[in-house]
């Protein structure tokens, strides 16, 4: 492939009526990365993905997919799992996967053979010849996911892939995403469940209100918030408040506050000198969930 960016989009705008659902979003997904698009419900994630794939056309902006200016030209190299899952209920699972491969240029025979291998790998070997209507929702969802990778795409786009899956199938899906990444595929997925993004993403974008609010690594996102200090003195004394930073709040047997800008050392010296001592001290980095809430909350404020 040789492209630096699997996906590159700038200034994407989409209006539904007078509402700008997506309002100038830029996205650049490095080739070979796992990239998350995070955002609350109604943020514009799905609309953004649909514009990237050419399902709908943006009102403004431009995008390239795998180096192609038109998403249609890249379609044989792209796999897609839409937010609203959909399969033909009367099709057998193997046929459904082969059909999705055929839509992307894979011949039926190879598609059927790969479908069996993929289903056995995903623990669904027993359901190869079952009709979709007889599968559970989670199984059908996995079948559709397998259909989106059967042609071994260079770019896999997954819209809320974890929603509706039980924990076991969520773990299967995480493994499958990592397998695809190891195969060389670029993964772009949307979610509002932070734990998956935190574990999987090399980079992520946070979208809220149709605008991109953040872009960077998971560490960059967590860096948006200051680290938090949990301090426990030797003895409880309300007067300690005069020594602690103004944002300090009581927390069980100690105090919790943001790490001061100049570091913790000066504060610790003052606490020791005042005779409070240090019974416990921990400095914690905030999680992606907190960072997400802060970033999205700023927009909503």
């Amino acid at each position: 492939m040789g492209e630096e960016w699997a996906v590159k989009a700038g200034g994407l705008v989409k209006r539904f009526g007078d509402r700008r659902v997506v309002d100038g979003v830029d996205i650049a997904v490095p080739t070979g990365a796992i990239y998350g698009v995070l955002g609350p419900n109604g943020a514009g994630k799905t609309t953004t993905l649909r514009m990237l794939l050419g399902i709908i056309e943006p009102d403004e902006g431009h995008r390239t997919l795998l180096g192609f200016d038109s998403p249609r030209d890249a379609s044989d190299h792209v796999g897609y799992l839409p937010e609203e899952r959909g399969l033909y209920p009367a099709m057998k699972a193997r046929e459904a996967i082969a059909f999705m491969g055929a839509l992307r240029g894979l011949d039926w025979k190879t598609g059927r053979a790969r479908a069996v291998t993929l289903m056995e790998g995903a623990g669904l070997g027993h359901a190869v010849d079952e009709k979709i209507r007889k599968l559970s929702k989670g199984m059908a969802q996995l079948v559709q996911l397998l259909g989106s990778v059967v042609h071994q795409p260079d770019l896999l786009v997954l819209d809320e892939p974890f929603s509706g899956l039980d924990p076991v199938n969520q773990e299967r899906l995480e493994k499958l995403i990592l397998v695809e990444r190891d195969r060389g595929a670029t993964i772009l997925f949307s979610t509002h469940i932070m734990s998956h993004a935190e574990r999987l993403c090399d980079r992520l974008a946070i979208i809220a209100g149709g605008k991109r609010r953040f872009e960077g690594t998971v560490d960059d996102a967590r860096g948006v918030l200051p680290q938090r200090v949990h301090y426990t003195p030797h003895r409880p004394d309300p007067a300690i408040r005069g020594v602690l930073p103004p944002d300090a709040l009581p927390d069980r047997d100690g105090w919790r506050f943001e790490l001061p800008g100049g570091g913790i050392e000066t504060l610790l010296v003052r606490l020791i000198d005042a005779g409070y001592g240090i019974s416990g001290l921990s400095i914690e980095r905030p999680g992606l969930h907190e960072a997400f809430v802060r970033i999205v909350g700023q927009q909503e404020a």
Partner: protein
Amino acid sequence: MTRFRRTLRQTFTIARRDFTATVFTPIFLLFLFAPLIMGAFGAVGGLGAASVTDGAQDKAQIIAILPAAESRMMAEADTQLRGIFRPGEGPPDLTTQPAAADPAAQARNAFDRNDIDAAAVLYGPLAAPQILYGPRGDRAAGYLATLAQTTLAAQQAGGTLPPIDVTKTRITRSRGSVGGQHQSAFFAVFGIFFLTLFLSGQVVGTMAEERNNKVIEVLAAAVPLESVFFGKLIGMFGVAVLFVAFWGTVVGQVTTLLPAGAAAAIGDLRPAVGGPMFALLFAGYFTMAYLLLGSVFLGVGAQASTMREIQMLSLPITILQVAMFGLSSAAVSRPGSWIATLAELFPLSSPFAMAGHAANSPELWPHVAALAWQALWVTIFIVVGARLFRRGVLQSGSARPFWRRAKPH
């Protein structure tokens, strides 16, 4: 792989899915045998055929090639004899002509005229007349013989009817009769109407499946919507062809069991372009009629969001088809008229009217142009249907009209 080949492959992937998903169901058997219920349409066709036959009757004539004096006497005899027939059951109108240098050639040429349909032609002396007659013209020939005898008796002023020595010869036309061409035209129009009425309406609900089970999102991401639409149309056309092949075979086998004379009962069906070419054009126009109406129904049906809406579409669909049938029937009974031109040009009636045109006129180039014109409109209907679907159902379009989008906010 080129974009065209990829598009073609994707189109046939959709077609294959739709074809197999439709044929391999129990419902398809119900559909296959539905013509038994649809026999009522035969009555409709019969009424139309009767009107065409009436039209053809106006052009049918019997001709007597005689000297002027005998012509007058024969006309009087004809007036007297015609009174014994009930209205509508009499022989064709009598026309008399003076004899040319070669009355035999003159009589034979009368069968090749395209302004009249000569049922039988008499020439030669009344005592030993020669009578030529065409298909279904034997009764007319007998009537001419009786007229000759009556006229001869009148010449002899009250004597007994003299015996005459009649020679009747059945001839084969070098071209189809005007009435036969009109009948062929009507059968073509009705045949295509019947098949498309029965088959193309199925297309209206096909997009509902994808909408209901959300597969449309998968298809729209992988395949151009135009390919989705065209693929579905081809898939359903495959179903229609299978249906026609099945029933064509059944009807063909039944026809072989009919008595030999039965074929003559349906008249002198000789389309102007010739039988084999007519069959080819019929197939072509059936294809185009199906694709044209199917693409319109597909586009309209794709906008419907519930089965109820789709069911409600069936009435306007039927009305549209019957309207096209009516327009085309009017066109084939008046070849060359403004209404015929209108029907031949209007995309949805064009296949019907042009099939009728093939029966009435021998030129082939209009059919090449017509098929290209109809194919163009199939493309237009599919593209427009896909765009409306993308804009309305996939919500791809902006609510702002294009002339307002350029304005800054």
